[in-house]
C-alpha cells in the first residue's frame, strides 16, 4: 500500500453505486436524437394502418361499406369485425376478466370506438381510405353519468352480457353493473358511526383524467409466414404479458412470438394493456404477409386509450369531539366505461383502493365499490395510480380536511393526532394491510417546520381579515396532505395478472473481463433503469456501474416479468437484482477462498473485493474473480459467473410522504397561483437521489395538471369535449410551479436493499395537497368542499356561490 493506493472511500465512489447522483446512461442517445422509439422503425415492405372511428357514443352499426376506401390507390385492405371473426378476434379478453370489441360488432359503445382498420402503402393513402369508409349508424340513447347507470330505465350498454347475472368478479345487480367489491368490517364500522360524536360525509369525485404521455400508443407487427412467427414492437410497459396474452388469443405458440418494447416516450400506465390497434396490426400483418405499423394520434389517444380515475366516492369519517378518528366508511361508484379493461390484478376489481384508511389509525373501516358501464372509453387504472391508490388517498385526505374543519382543528394538528405512530409498525390496517415500516410524525413535523407552517397560518389569518375589510381580492390557502401508498405489486398470494403471479426478475451475467449485463422483466419508460439497476449491482458486487449494461423489453432475452407500473420496479425487480447479485457473490466468495487457499468464512467483503480477515493484503477483486470463474473454479463447481432470480415479494411496500402547498387565489377571476410546494418523500433506501427528484418533479407536475384543470369530459350526448391538447390541460413551463423536495429514509425491513419505490408518490400525495390548498382558501367563508379540477371558472363559480362578487 502506498500513496497511490485508492482509499476505500475512493474505491466506493468509483463504483457509482447506490446513493450517488449517477448521470444517466440513456441520456447519451436521447440528447442526440438517437433514441429508438416505435415510430422510428421502418421495415422493408412495411404497410401503415389507420382506424375508422365512430362519431357517436352509442349506436347500432347497420352497414359498413369499405368499397370506396379499398379503391384508393395504395390501400391494400380494409378490415372490419367480420374479418376478425374469421380468426376469432373480433372480441378480445381484457385484463379485468371482461371482453372488449376489437372492431365494432353490430354496435358502438363510446365515441371514437374503433370500427374498421384501413391498411395501405403509405400513411397518406391510409388516411384517405379512412375518410372514405362509409358507415351507417342508428343512434341510440346514451348515458355518460355513472350515477345514473343503474337506474331502472338506463340504456343497456352491453347487450352481449345483458342477461348475465354473474360477472368476472361476482354477482351483477343490474345490466350496467360490472362488479361489487367490499373490504373491511361493515358491522363494526356502522356501529362506530352510530355512536360517534362527530361525523362528516361528502361526495368526493375524482374526475376522469388521462395520463397523456408525450408519445402515443403504437406498434409494428411483422408476421413471418415462412417461420410462422410474429415479431411485435410496441409501446408496452409489460412486454411479457403482451406476449402471453397475445399467444392465448391468437393461438400462435408463445415461443414463436417475439415482443420487443424499445424506448418508450412515457407510459404512466397508458401503455399496459392491449389496444385494438395492436390486434388489428397483427391480423393485418398475418393477412398481408408484410409488416404493419399502427400509430395513433393524440385525439385517439386521449379519447380511447386507458383513462384514469372516474371514481365517485361518498366518504365518511367518524370522530370523537376532541379529534380522535373512530371509523371510515366509503361507498364508491366507479365508472369503467363501456368495457372493463382496467389493468388491475385479477382478484382486485377495485385495485388497492382499500388503502383508503391511509396513514391514520382508524380502528374500523369499510369500503364498497360498485363498478358500472357507461358510454365512455374503457380503462380506469392508469396515471401513476398504483391501482386506485390515488383515488383512495384523495378521498381520505379531503375527508380528513373536512373533518378537521368541522372540529375547528388545524389540518396538520388533526393529522398529527391521528397518524399511525412509529411504535405501531409493523401496523395492520383496518383493511388488513400490513404496513411494514414508517415514521410518520417525524415526516410531518419536518414538513411543518421547514415551510414555517405556523407563520404561514398567521399570514393567512391576516389576509383573511384584510379580505373581509375589502383591502384585497386575493385569498390564501395552505394545503396539507399526508399519504401512505401501497406499491410493489406484488406477493403471489395476493397478486396475479390473468393468472400469472406478479413476481419479477433479474438475470445477471458477468463476463470474463469483469464487466457484465443485467436483463430484467421490468420496462422503463423514462425512469432511468439502465442507470439505477446498475447502481444496485455496483454496490452489491463491487463492479463499477459503468461496467454493467442493463437491458429490458426484449421478451426473447429478458427473464419473465410483469413490467413497470405501480412503482413496482424497484420493490420487485430491484429486489431480484440484489438477490441475483448475492448468488453471484456467494459463488465468487467460494472461488476466492479456493484461490487464496482459505476457508470461505475466513474472507470478508471490502467494497469491491474479498480479503482475508486479519490479512487484508491478501485479497481478490471481483474483476479477478470474474476471470477466474472462467478457468479456475474449484473442482466440482460449474464455470461461469451468472445468476437469475425471480422474486416473489413477501409484501407490498409502503412509501409515504408529507406535502404542503401554499396557493394564492384571485377571487375575481378564479385563477390560482401556487406560491410554494414542498414535498417530503420517504421511499426507503434512495438509490439515485437525482432520479428520485426528477420523478417527484414530474409526478407533482402531473398532479398539478390534474388538480388544476385536467378532465376527460363528456357532454350529455357522449361527445368527448377535451380530446385534444387545446382543451386537455397539460401545463407548460410557465404554469408549472417550482418544486421543493425533501426526504426521510425509513428502509423497508423486508426488501433486500430496503427500497420502496417512488414514481407514483407525487401523484398520490400531490393531488390532495393542491385540492386541500384551494379548499383551505375558502374555508373561512364557510366553504367545506369544492370539487376538482380547480380551474379558474370553477373556482370563480365557487366564489360566486359564496357571494364574493358583490
Amino acid at each position, binding site marked *: 500500500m502506498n500513496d497511490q493506493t485508492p482509499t476505500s472511500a475512493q474505491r466506493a465512489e468509483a463504483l457509482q453505486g447506490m446513493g450517488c447522483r449517477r448521470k444517466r446512461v440513456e441520456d447519451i442517445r436521447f440528447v442526440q436524437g438517437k433514441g429508438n422509439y416505435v415510430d422510428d422503425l421502418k421495415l422493408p415492405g412495411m404497410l401503415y394502418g389507420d382506424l375508422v372511428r365512430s362519431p357517436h357514443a352509442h349506436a347500432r352499426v347497420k352497414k359498413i361499406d369499405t368499397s370506396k376506401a379499398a379503391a384508393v390507390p395504395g390501400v391494400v385492405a380494409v378490415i372490419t369485425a367480420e374479418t376478425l371473426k374469421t380468426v376469432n378476434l373480433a372480441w378480445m379478453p381484457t385484463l379485468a376478466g371482461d371482453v372488449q370489441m376489437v372492431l365494432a360488432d353490430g354496435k358502438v359503445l363510446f365515441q371514437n370506438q374503433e370500427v374498421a382498420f384501413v391498411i395501405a402503402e403509405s400513411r397518406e393513402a391510409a388516411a384517405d381510405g379512412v375518410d372514405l369508409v362509409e358507415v351507417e349508424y342508428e343512434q341510440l340513447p346514451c348515458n355518460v353519468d355513472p350515477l345514473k347507470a343503474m337506474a331502472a330505465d338506463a340504456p343497456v350498454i352491453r347487450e352481449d352480457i345483458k342477461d348475465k347475472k354473474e360477472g368476472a368478479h361476482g354477482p351483477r345487480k343490474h345490466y350496467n353493473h360490472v362488479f361489487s367489491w367490499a373490504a373491511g368490517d361493515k358491522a363494526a364500522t356502522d356501529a362506530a358511526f352510530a355512536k360517534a360524536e362527530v361525523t362528516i360525509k361528502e361526495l368526493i369525485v375524482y374526475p376522469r383524467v388521462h395520463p397523456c404521455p408525450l408519445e402515443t400508443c403504437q406498434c409494428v407487427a411483422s408476421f413471418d409466414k415462412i417461420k410462422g412467427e410474429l415479431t411485435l414492437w410496441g409501446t408496452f410497459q409489460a412486454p411479457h404479458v403482451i406476449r402471453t396474452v397475445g399467444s392465448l388469443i391468437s393461438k400462435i405458440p408463445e415461443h414463436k412470438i417475439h415482443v420487443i418494447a424499445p424506448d418508450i416516450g412515457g407510459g404512466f400506465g397508458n401503455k399496459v394493456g392491449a389496444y385494438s390497434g395492436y390486434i388489428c396490426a397483427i391480423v393485418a400483418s398475418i393477412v398481408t404477409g408484410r409488416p404493419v405499423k399502427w400509430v395513433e394520434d393524440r385525439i385517439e389517444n386521449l379519447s380511447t386509450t386507458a383513462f384514469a380515475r372516474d371514481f365517485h366516492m361518498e366518504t365518511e369519517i367518524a370522530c370523537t369531539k376532541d379529534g380522535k378518528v373512530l371509523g371510515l366508511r366509503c361507498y364508491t361508484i366507479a365508472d369503467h366505461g363501456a368495457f372493463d379493461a382496467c389493468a388491475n390484478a385479477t382478484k382486485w376489481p377495485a385495485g388497492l383502493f382499500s388503502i383508503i384508511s391511509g396513514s391514520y389509525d382508524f380502528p374500523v373501516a369499510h369500503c364498497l365499490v360498485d363498478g358500472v358501464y357507461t358510454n365512455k372509453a374503457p380503462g380506469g387504472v392508469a396515471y401513476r395510480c398504483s391501482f386506485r391508490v390515488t383515488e383512495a388517498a384523495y378521498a381520505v385526505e379531503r375527508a380528513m380536511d373536512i373533518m378537521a374543519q368541522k372540529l375547528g382543528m388545524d389540518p396538520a394538528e388533526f393529522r398529527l393526532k391521528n397518524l399511525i405512530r412509529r411504535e405501531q409498525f409493523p401496523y395492520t390496517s383496518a383493511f388488513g394491510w400490513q404496513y411494514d415500516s414508517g415514521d410518520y410524525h417525524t415526516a410531518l413535523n419536518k414538513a411543518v417546520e421547514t415551510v414555517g407552517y405556523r407563520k404561514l397560518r398567521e399570514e393567512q389569518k391576516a389576509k383573511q381579515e384584510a379580505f373581509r375589510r375589502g383591502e384585497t381580492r386575493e385569498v390564501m390557502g395552505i394545503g396539507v396532505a399526508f399519504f401512505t401508498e401501497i406499491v410493489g405489486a406484488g406477493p403471489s398470494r395476493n397478486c396475479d395478472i390473468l393468472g400469472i403471479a406478479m413476481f419479477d426478475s433479474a438475470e445477471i451475467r458477468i463476463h470474463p473481463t469483469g464487466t457484465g449485463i443485467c436483463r430484467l422483466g421490468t420496462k422503463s419508460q423514462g425512469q432511468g433503469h439502465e442507470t439505477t439497476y446498475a447502481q444496485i449491482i455496483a454496490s452489491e458486487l463491487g463492479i463499477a456501474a459503468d461496467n454493467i449494461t442493463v437491458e429490458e423489453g426484449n421478451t426473447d432475452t429478458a427473464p419473465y416479468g410483469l413490467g413497470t407500473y405501480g412503482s413496482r420496479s424497484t420493490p420487485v425487480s430491484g429486489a431480484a437484482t440484489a438477490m441475483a447479485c448475492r448468488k453471484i457473490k456467494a459463488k465468487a466468495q467460494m472461488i476466492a477462498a479456493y484461490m487464496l487457499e482459505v476457508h470461505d468464512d475466513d474472507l470478508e467483503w471490502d467494497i469491491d473485493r474479498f480479503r482475508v480477515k486479519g490479512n487484508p493484503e491478501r485479497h481478490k477483486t471481483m474483476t479477478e474473480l470474474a476471470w477466474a470463474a472462467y478457468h479456475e473454479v474449484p473442482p466440482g463447481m460449474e464455470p461461469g459467473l451468472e445468476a437469475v432470480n425471480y422474486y416473489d415479494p413477501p409484501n407490498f411496500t409502503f412509501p409515504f410522504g408529507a406535502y404542503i402547498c401554499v396557493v394564492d387565489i384571485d377571487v375575481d377571476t378564479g385563477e390560482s397561483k401556487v406560491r410554494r410546494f414542498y414535498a417530503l418523500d420517504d421511499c426507503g433506501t434512495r438509490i439515485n437521489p437525482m432520479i428520485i427528484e426528477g*420523478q417527484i418533479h414530474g409526478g407533482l407536475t402531473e398532479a398539478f395538471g390534474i388538480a388544476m384543470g385536467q378532465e376527460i369530459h363528456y357532454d350529455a350526448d357522449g361527445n368527448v369535449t377535451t380530446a385534444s391538447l387545446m382543451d386537455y390541460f397539460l401545463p407548460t413551463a410557465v404554469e408549472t410551479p417550482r418544486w421543493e423536495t425533501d426526504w426521510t429514509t425509513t428502509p423497508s425491513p423486508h426488501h433486500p436493499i430496503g427500497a420502496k419505490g417512488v414514481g407514483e408518490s407525487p401523484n398520490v400525495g400531490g393531488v390532495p395537497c393542491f385540492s386541500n390548498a384551494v379548499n383551505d382558501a375558502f374555508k373561512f367563508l364557510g366553504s367545506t368542499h369544492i370539487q376538482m379540477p380547480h380551474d379558474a371558472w370553477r373556482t370563480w363559480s365557487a366564489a360566486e356561490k359564496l357571494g364574493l362578487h358583490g
Partner: protein
Amino acid sequence: MAKSQISLSVNGKTVEALVEPRTLLIHFLREQLMLTGPHIGCETSHCGACTVDLDGKSVKSCTMFAVQANGADVRTIEGMAAADGSLHVLQEAFREMHGLQCGFCTPGMITRAYRLLQENPSPSEDEIRMGISGNLCRCTGYQNIVKAIQYAAAKISGVPFREAAE
C-alpha cells in the same frame, strides 16, 4: 398527386427530394431523410416535440409542408453535435442537470433551447420558462430543463453556474 421537387439544406448538407405537397416537414425529415430525432406528440400543433431550427427560427415542423421549406436551412437535433461528435454544450447540460427522462420531448426541447439562447444569451428563469412554453414535457416537470438551460447559458458566456438551492 403530382410531386414537387424541393432543395434545401438539412444539418449542413444539401438535400434534393421529391415530395407530395401535403407531406408535412416532420414526415419528410423523419421518413425520407431518416432523421428520427424530432418526434410527433400531437396533431394540433401544441406539443412542440417536432421543433426544428429553420432559417434561424424555431419552427414546429408538423405545421409546415416540406414544400414550404424549399430553399431553407434546417437544423435538427442530429445537427447539434460538432463534426467530431463532441456534444453541444446544451446536450451536455441536459445530461448534467437531469433535464430528461423518457427523452421524447428532448430533441425538440434542446433545439428550441438553442435558438432561445441565440435570442437571449442570459435569460432569467422566467424568460427561460416563457421561452420554452411551446414545448411540452410530461416527465420532468420542467425544473431540471430550466436548470440545464441556465447551466448551458452560463457555460457559453463563460460565467460560473450557481445552482439555486431547491
